[in-house]
């Protein structure tokens, strides 16, 4: 296992476990307001200090992990579910279908992600699942592009010809012959998208269009802490650093995974 993969697993794994165990390991209630303990700097009782309502920053951070992760993962699943079939079809059929699908993807890519998110959430009452859906939709084109590129190169392989020679249906060829070989690059791309989705989701929360108070989301935490950044910088810094660590961890994980997932790469190592 490469150092990259190990580091990625360690960082991401720790954050996921902390997030899952948050309700049990959080040292203080995450949503109880206590005016006597406002703006306490980090100390022995409150390790990361307290915010403007006297809530423990560490506890809120831990609870926020869940929302941020759920946001990133569900948005990525949405973009995979839409993007992969589009990419497979475009790469396999080529010609007109390819042009139509990919030009549509280009149009979507031309819209700034945050604008699209704003558009969806501004006209309907904000809800977390809508944010995830909107963010997922925004990241369809890059996923579709990767799926298309892999399909283009795989479509000429002889095992696809062999499948045609036994009259396999097109869905079988796309999803059973091509897709398993397309996973490695897709997983790498998807892991990158998880981090983007977390950042975008946090940005939308920061603008008040994602998670709603009093729930704790990293973006929302930073947004709320903004007004007190001169008095109590720890309230904003903690979620900022957490987000940073998660993004780095997932990126390392994705890059490391690519090397292990490709059977051809493995074959090369095995043969040498």
């Amino acid at each position, binding site marked *: 296992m490469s150092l990259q993969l190990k580091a990625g697993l360690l960082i991401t794994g720790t954050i996921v476990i902390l997030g899952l165990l948050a309700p049990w390991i959080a040292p203080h209630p995450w949503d109880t307001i206590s005016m006597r303990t406002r703006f306490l700097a980090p100390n022995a009782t409150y390790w990361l200090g307290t915010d403007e309502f006297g809530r423990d920053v560490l506890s809120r951070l831990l609870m926020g992990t869940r929302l941020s992760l759920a946001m990133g993962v569900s948005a990525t699943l949405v973009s995979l579910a839409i993007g992969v079939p589009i990419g497979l079809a475009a790469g396999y059929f080529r010609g007109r279908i390819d042009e139509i699908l990919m030009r549509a993807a280009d149009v979507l890519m031309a819209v700034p992600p945050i604008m699209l998110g704003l558009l969806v959430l501004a006209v309907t009452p904000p809800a977390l699942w809508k944010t995830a859906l909107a963010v997922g939709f925004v990241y369809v084109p890059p996923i579709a592009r990767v799926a298309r590129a892999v399909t283009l190169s795989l479509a000429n392989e002889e095992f696809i010809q062999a499948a045609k*020679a036994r009259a396999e249906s097109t869905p079988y060829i796309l999803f059973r012959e091509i897709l398993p070989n397309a996973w490695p690059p897709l997983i790498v791309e998807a892991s990158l998208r998880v981090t983007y989705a977390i950042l975008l989701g946090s940005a939308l929360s920061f603008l008040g269009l994602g998670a709603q108070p009093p729930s704790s989301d990293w973006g929302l935490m930073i947004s709320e802490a903004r007004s007190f950044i001169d008095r109590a910088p720890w309230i904003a810094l903690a979620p900022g650093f957490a987000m940073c660590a998660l993004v780095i961890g997932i990126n390392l994980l994705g890059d490391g995974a690519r090397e292990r997932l490709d059977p051809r790469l493995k074959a090369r190592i095995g043969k040498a």
Partner: protein
Amino acid sequence: MLKIEGLTVRYRTPGGVVEALTDISLEAPKGKTLAIVGESGSGKSTVALAAMGLLPAEAGRPEGRILFDGADVLAMDDAQKRALRGARIGLVFQDPFSVLNPSLRIGDQVGEGLVHHRGYTREKAFARAVELLDEVGILKPEAIARAYPHELSGGMRQRALIAGAIASEPDLLILDEPTTALDVTIEAQILDLLETIRARRGLTMVFISHNLGLVRRVADRVAVLYAGQVVEEGAAEAVLHRSMHPYAKGLLAAIPRLGRKQLRLAAIPGRLPDLRKPPAGCRFEPRCPFAGPESCAPQVLRTVGDRQVRCARAEIVKDMAWPATAIDPVAAENAAPRSDEPVVVAANLSKRFVLSQGLVFEGWRPRLRAVTTTAVDDISLDVAAGEVVGLVGESGSGKTTLGRTILRLAEPNAGEIRIAGEVITGKPQKALEGMRRTAQIVFQNPDSSLNPRKTIGELIARPIVRFGLAPKGEVAAKVRALLDLVRLPAHYADRYAHQMSGGEKQRVGIARALATEPRFIVCDEPVSALDVSVQAAIVNLLADLRDRLGVAYLFISHDISVVAHLADRIAVMNRGKIVEIGKAAEIMNNPQHPYTIRLLSAVPTVDGPRHPRAAEPQP
């Protein structure tokens, strides 16, 4: 000129340390051609890289010495090596399609060495490049020097590469499989060219190849490599016609000979030893039919008569012939009766490809005009049940397209195809279920024809499940039976493609094609990617299966000797047309069409004469 002494190269890999070369000693005397032959994994290319000082970083520092004109290449620093490479040793690689930089003009690439090593100006180097291109027999050298690589054919590119290699007037030319990517007629031209240059310039050549026929034509001395060791070394004629080492014998017995029809080719069983932990005794012992008690001890290279042999039993084995392969007794017994009833009939088949579509102005009106090429041009062909029809032709002749069009993997533009009596043209793909069962295909590239994500069991089971050929509980048994048919052990069903050798993968490809119990199989260059000894085993397997199951083949290959060995009839294809078709023996012994004659005369054979020597260089 070049002297290699006790060279040992080890590669560090994630799987352990691989000893690619063990104690190699070779000598290429001035003005002579030394050929290094061996199969893939024998280490022959590593010798070339080491001699050029181009070993990759994983190789570390090799042991031994490589003396070039008395100076040790391995002891040189990078600057000295660079000077040596550019100025005194020229290298020609295997693949003329990837070696040239696509965005530089040919003339600049040919003259590049002169700029770096001889201090020429760009203009002067370009002018010299034009002269060199002229020397390697390129017509209109000025125009070609200004062309980019994609504008040249494979043979022209290889000529340009040779021009580049001889530009700075090296003393030694190392050629690593220089003609493997080329057609036989082009190959013959390149060999002529090399011989002319060698004689004119008094060059020393090291010629690396797996093709024994080719080696016979060019080499003065031959070294046979097996698993990183020299197993036999001597004068070309002696080694190739009266080989002593069992491996050399096996290799020579495994190649199909023109004009000598055998029922089965001799094959070398087994596979290369794992070079991470090479066997202590003779490395060829597990595959050797002549092995004796002495074979368990490490073998040393010793002088026997006029050459060096690494075999303790050389004197005993010397005059023994490699054992012939018997015909599979089951196949012989159950031989399916042949009939003249055709299983495939193709009539007036045509297939065109659109190369590009462009707007052309007719007067003021823009019109879409397509540039097309006719890959299959009005071809009629039939294959009888249990018959093998060989299809030969050079690259671009349309043989692969013909094979795929017959199976409707490519849609024909005109013509009619009947398979097992059923007309299959003019029907939608969905209506071809029956035909897809009757007719199957085996591909050229074993790496690309098996889905790397599926186990061998899944791959072979799929056609059975797809066509419902066995109830669910019996699929596994059927897969085992098919594996047995292609002589693979049953536990291979759990393996993935990358865990197998090339020959084993090709067996799986054949088993998959046989799974639907077809009556006709298109074999599209099934042995071209394989080593000689493996090729023999696969060709034998195909012959056994034909006898046992009565399958008919359309056997496509550019290698005429393989086709001649297996086929009942041969069709020769050139530029989309069949120029000659007839009984195999007739085509081979009495070809009529000029193209067939040219093709046959270009094939280098081991039995053939050495290349006529141009005037010997002055000492």
